[in-house]
């Protein structure tokens, strides 16, 4: 008898979705899908608006990564008006962005992904949350996460207005600089962030790397895909969140493309499926070959581990040391273990903290030369940043008056949509055998996509109640024969 398992909604994912798992007569997984209700029509919603409104509107797409949209949109306006921001403006933008990456990465590690490892993938569902993490590592760690997050957000508020509705980026610059007094305050935040990054990497070492079962889980083939990887790199091919060229490497780590943001359409195309509103970007030169990995597939992964795989290293010393240790443990570069995205996230948080300090120690950061006023006529612009969840592209067209005539956004979760679909199916096939389905196994299927930190903006903002996980097992007639609820 064929069975159909439904997990809906997915727990601890930013947004919501549903996994459907179809079993064959032997009780093994035949197919698995991740379906996400997406809001439609943002591009249409934008047309006819003045382009300069976009850095204020696009952060509203999602309450999870407003700063990433704000920054991609701001860079898109630079490109649209053909204006080069001043050096100080770029540094101030990168400073805000570093603070954002820190708070976002730790939120994911400790609150979303952390419970899988710190509490354990097989632990009861009721314990696989931040409260379970506190139970394992103590109240002080959670207090420290919340304190650092608050400090980063206060820093962002000082510089950019409300965290959720930043009013900071302008074409050619920023709306506000920082004083010497603020610089000294922010340096304390940077020092705290560097220390906490070291602590978090040590915690990962103690909790995950010293646990043979967890290491085996990370390296389990059920959680691996040999794909292409993509990310922004600086001129030395080091990871950069704010600017640079987009570099793409093959599953063997060989550079197969490198391009400026404005040229992205020569390298990236989008595939559509009838069962989803999400588009599936792929490498144009290779083409769409379906949901499959390998060098012959156009599927490309984005986000922390992909960025590390794409780059030649990290631009700061402590992050570089952590980077080298990660690849030594994972057996070289590129690493294909999806669960290692969590580790790469901590390496990146270390880099963001060190970079924040570097920027603050640069005397130019307090200069009042914060904007180059645009003088050109707007036409077409592209802005790319690395969001916590992967590469984020904003592409606008306007008339001579700067009124939007066409908009295209490719968000980070788009890039990982095909890999997530592949990872969910492979994990389900690896974990569920002979019709044996339980709470822990289903969580291990969810872990496959949680590592990507996907963000599917909520279709509706709803009451802050308890997040349920429901697994329904249907027979071939659609009748529910088993229900797992927690």
């Amino acid at each position, binding site marked *: 008898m064929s069975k159909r398992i439904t997990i809906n909604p997915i727990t601890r994912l930013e947004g919501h979705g549903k996994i459907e798992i179809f079993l064959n007569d032997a009780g093994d997984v035949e197919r698995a899908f991740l379906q996400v209700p997406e809001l439609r029509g943002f591009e249409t919603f934008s047309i006819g608006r003045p382009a300069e409104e976009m850095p204020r509107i696009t952060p509203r797409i999602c309450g999870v990564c407003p700063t990433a949209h704000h920054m991609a949109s701001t860079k898109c306006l630079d490109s649209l008006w053909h204006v080069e921001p001043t050096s100080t403006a770029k540094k101030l933008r990168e400073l805000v962005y570093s603070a954002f990456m820190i708070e976002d990465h730790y939120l994911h590690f400790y609150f979303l992904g952390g419970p899988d490892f710190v509490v354990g993938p097989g632990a009861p569902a009721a314990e696989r949350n931040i409260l379970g993490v506190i139970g394992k590592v103590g109240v002080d760690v959670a207090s420290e996460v919340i304190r650092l997050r608050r400090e980063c957000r206060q820093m962002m508020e000082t510089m950019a207005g409300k965290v959720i509705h930043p009013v900071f980026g302008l074409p050619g610059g920023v709306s506000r600089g920082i004083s010497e007094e603020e610089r000294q305050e922010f340096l304390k935040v940077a020092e705290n962030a560097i220390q906490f990054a070291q602590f978090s990497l040590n915690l990962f070492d103690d909790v995950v790397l010293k646990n043979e079962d967890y290491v085996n889980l990370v390296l389990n083939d059920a959680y691996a895909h040999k794909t292409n990887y993509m990310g922004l790199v600086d001129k030395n091919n080091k990871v950069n969140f704010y600017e640079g060229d987009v570099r793409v490497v093959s599953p063997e780590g060989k550079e197969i493309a490198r391009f400026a943001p404005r040229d992205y359409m020569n390298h990236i195309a989008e595939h559509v499926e009838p069962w989803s509103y999400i588009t599936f970007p792929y490498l144009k030169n290779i083409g769409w070959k379906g949901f499959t990995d390998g060098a012959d597939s156009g599927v490309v992964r984005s986000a922390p581990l992909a960025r590390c795989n794409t780059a030649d290293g990290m631009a700061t010393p402590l992050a570089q040391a952590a980077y080298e240790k990660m690849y030594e443990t994972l057996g070289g570069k590129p690493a294909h273990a999806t669960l290692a995205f969590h580790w790469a996230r901590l390496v990146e948080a270390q880099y963001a903290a060190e970079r924040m300090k570097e920027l603050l120690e640069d005397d130019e950061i307090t200069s009042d030369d914060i904007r180059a006023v645009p003088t050109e006529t707007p036409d077409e612009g592209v802005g790319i940043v690395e969001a916590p969840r992967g590469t984020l592209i904003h592409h606008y067209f306007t008339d001579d008056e700067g009124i939007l005539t066409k908009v295209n956004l490719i968000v980070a979760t788009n890039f990982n949509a095909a890999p997530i679909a592949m990872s969910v199916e492979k994990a389900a096939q690896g974990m569920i055998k002979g019709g044996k389905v339980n709470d822990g196994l289903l969580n291990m299927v969810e872990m496959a996509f949680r590592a990507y930190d996907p963000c599917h903006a909520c279709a509706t903002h709803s009451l802050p109640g308890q997040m*349920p996980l429901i697994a329904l097992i249907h027979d071939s007639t659609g009748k529910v024969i088993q229900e797992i609820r927690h």
Partner: protein
Amino acid sequence: MHTDRSTSVLVLALGNDIKGDDAVALEAVQILKKEGSEGIDFVDTIESGLALLELMSGYDKVLLLDSVSTGVHPVGTILEFSPDDFNQVLSTCRHFMGLPEVIELAKRLSIDFPDEIRILAMEIAPPYEFSQTLTAPIRAALPSYIQKAGDLLKSRG
């Protein structure tokens, strides 16, 4: 966390102003704010989850305004909850951290958190397209929603 609030009561509206009816609580709180009330802070946010910890800490009492899509009530129905309801109710929340978890987290971390939280929600149809306007049924139900919120605030101890 905040321990220096100048007022003890917060009206916190959750929603997104470019997602159609999801903005109903945001519209309501703007009107309540204009009507004004001594000793009450009025705040709106697109955030939820952990952000609630920061927004609500330091207050004694909070009235949370939000939208909900249970699919079991007619659109425009006004529903009142307490946090305890969410331990039993099958919530439609899509966020990674629910209110019960936030309250428990505050307790474990000894964060000054409200003793009284009341939740007033309006049933909406899930919005699937971006929009900056409320649909007619939600617009029609808005005065009752504001009236109910005002009554709750007046009845606060």
